């Protein structure tokens, strides 16, 4: 069929019975030379993260940047309002009464850090994205968010051959192997 020509194919998907089988399949795929792949689990499985080597996330850095921005912005605001724009001399007390500015500064740091963590997670994950090729597979929709463990060998790497990937995954003892179409 014309649809199964390579650019139209997102990849080849295999479903496994347990996280253990999924991890074993990831390792074997790596050994067989597959590079572009993704796994789908109904809950975070640390061994899968390890096997795919996904421990490096930019999120902590993004959160720190958000928190620092928030702290600087709120302290700056408090300083500018109280010492520059509208200075009030109350019994000669210092205009830059920085200890009194700390509570609002802290809240500003948490506010912007928290938003950076939440929104940053979505952006790094490419969400919101209402549709994705993997949803074309019926069993994926039925089981991925419930009790299914899926591995997708993705097309797009040099020399990717769907038929060979299919044969390779079938040999790993999956429940089902499906081709994931882009359309």
């Amino acid at each position: 069929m014309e649809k199964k020509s390579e650019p139209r194919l997102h990849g080849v998907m295999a479903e496994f019975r347990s996280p253990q089988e999924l991890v074993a399949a990831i390792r074997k795929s790596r050994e067989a030379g597959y590079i572009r792949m993704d796994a789908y689990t109904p809950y975070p499985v640390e061994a899968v993260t390890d096997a795919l080597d996904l421990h490096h996330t930019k999120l902590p850095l993004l959160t720190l940047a958000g928190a620092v921005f928030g702290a600087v912005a709120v302290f700056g605001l408090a300083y500018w309002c109280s010492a520059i724009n509208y200075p009030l001399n109350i019994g000669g007390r210092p205009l830059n009464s920085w200890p009194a500015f700390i509570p609002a500064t802290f809240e500003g740091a948490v506010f912007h850090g928290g938003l950076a963590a939440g929104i940053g997670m979505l952006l790094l994950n490419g969400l919101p994205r209402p549709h994705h090729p993997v949803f074309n597979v019926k069993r994926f929709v039925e089981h991925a968010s419930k009790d299914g463990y899926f591995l997708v060998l993705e097309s797009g790497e040099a020399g990717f051959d769907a038929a060979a990937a299919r044969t390779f995954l079938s040999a790993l003892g999956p429940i089902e192997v499906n081709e994931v179409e882009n359309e």
Partner: protein
Amino acid sequence: MSTTFDEPRAADPIAQAPVLAPGHSPGTVTEAIAGLVTRKVAKTPKWWLLGFAVSFGLLNVLLFAVTKLFMTGIGVWGNNIPVGWAWDITSFVWWIGIGHAGTLISAILLLLRQSWRNSINRFAEAMTIFAVSCAGMYPILHLGRPWLPYWLLPIPGTLMAWPNFRSPLIWDVFAVSTYATISLVFWYVGMIPDLATLRDHSTSRVARLIYGSAALGWRGSARHWANYEAAALLLAGLSTPLVLSVHSIVSFDFSIGIVPGWHTTVFPPYFVAGAVFAGFAMVLTLVLPLRPLFGLKDFITDRHLQNMAKVMLTTGLIVAYGYGIEAFAAWYSGNPYEWYMMKNRVTGPYALQYGLLLLCNIVVPQLLWIKKVRSNVWALWTIAMVINLGMWLERFVIIVVSLSRDFVPSNWAMFHATRYDVMTFAGTIGLFLTLTFLFVRFLPTLNMYEMRSLTPEAASTPHEE
């Protein structure tokens, strides 16, 4: 050790009291929890309809009380000089405190890797948001000119003035608005994978569309989970100091003032402990009836109830210590106004409220030392209700009793609540319960993806370094 590794030790507390009943797999957990939400409208249980109707009725009491307040003014409440803060601020502090248990359960227990929290955290986080919604309303209602709350924010305008960043009341604005926002982010981020489950589990097209939009296209990819888990930890790490700061700042509203009974350094830790104490009482108040009604005994097990009772007992003791230090500091200060404040609490016109507060918050919770009491749901529920009342009284005693008798006897006056005070408070309970009923019907009450990771299938996954 002579124990063999082949069989679990008999004394293993986990084996004795599981956090998830045996025999569950990721599939059955999902069916049980998602089924509560995705069942047909006609299958909505009778108790839900009844409970929702009563709560919604109470919510309308709030609408009436607030309308009256806006049309007439603050005078419809019993607040007057010298008691300018009364039921409004008492209830504000009470609601904020209740919210804190939610953050404690979701953030601090996550950082401490207490997996027993997995089944109650979603519910507790929802409770946080609903309680903060109730709390946030009071300061604005209390303004007297409720159309001017934006004066509290640093907005440039024709006013040409800025809020006073040295005032604890402005710190409060920053603290409570940050708390509400970050709690909402934490709750929503935590719900995204479960919303995806509901999207895939729903049969109705409308439900798929709504849950699907809210799930933002979540597909459970390993790349997603890696960032997601980092986000959960970061949000927990931010929420933990946040929750401590919020109630500390709320306590600054009082302790920065000079009124005897307010001006004390013990307030921040003692307010935070009291908040957790009251919050866990509220979680139990709601979870205990929900457990049999929704058939959640497999997920919210006796171990959860035991643990929550122990947290209440511990924080209750910290609160009792706070009361002790308050009295001791009043005497030890050698300040006649401070010492009079303490004598007035014990023997003055509000002695009944103070006595009840000691009974509710110190005496009754001691029953939780007894294991039989901790395992009896009726006893536990009653004690939780007593603590809810006691913690409201605590804030009432601190706020109203201190204000009613300050330095100069000619300035003294009693506070008398009006029916609008009562209606406003009852109305916020209505708001809280209405939101809770909507939540348990339309959103996943328990965290499905975390419950799946508690199943034996998931627990046996090998770790590799």
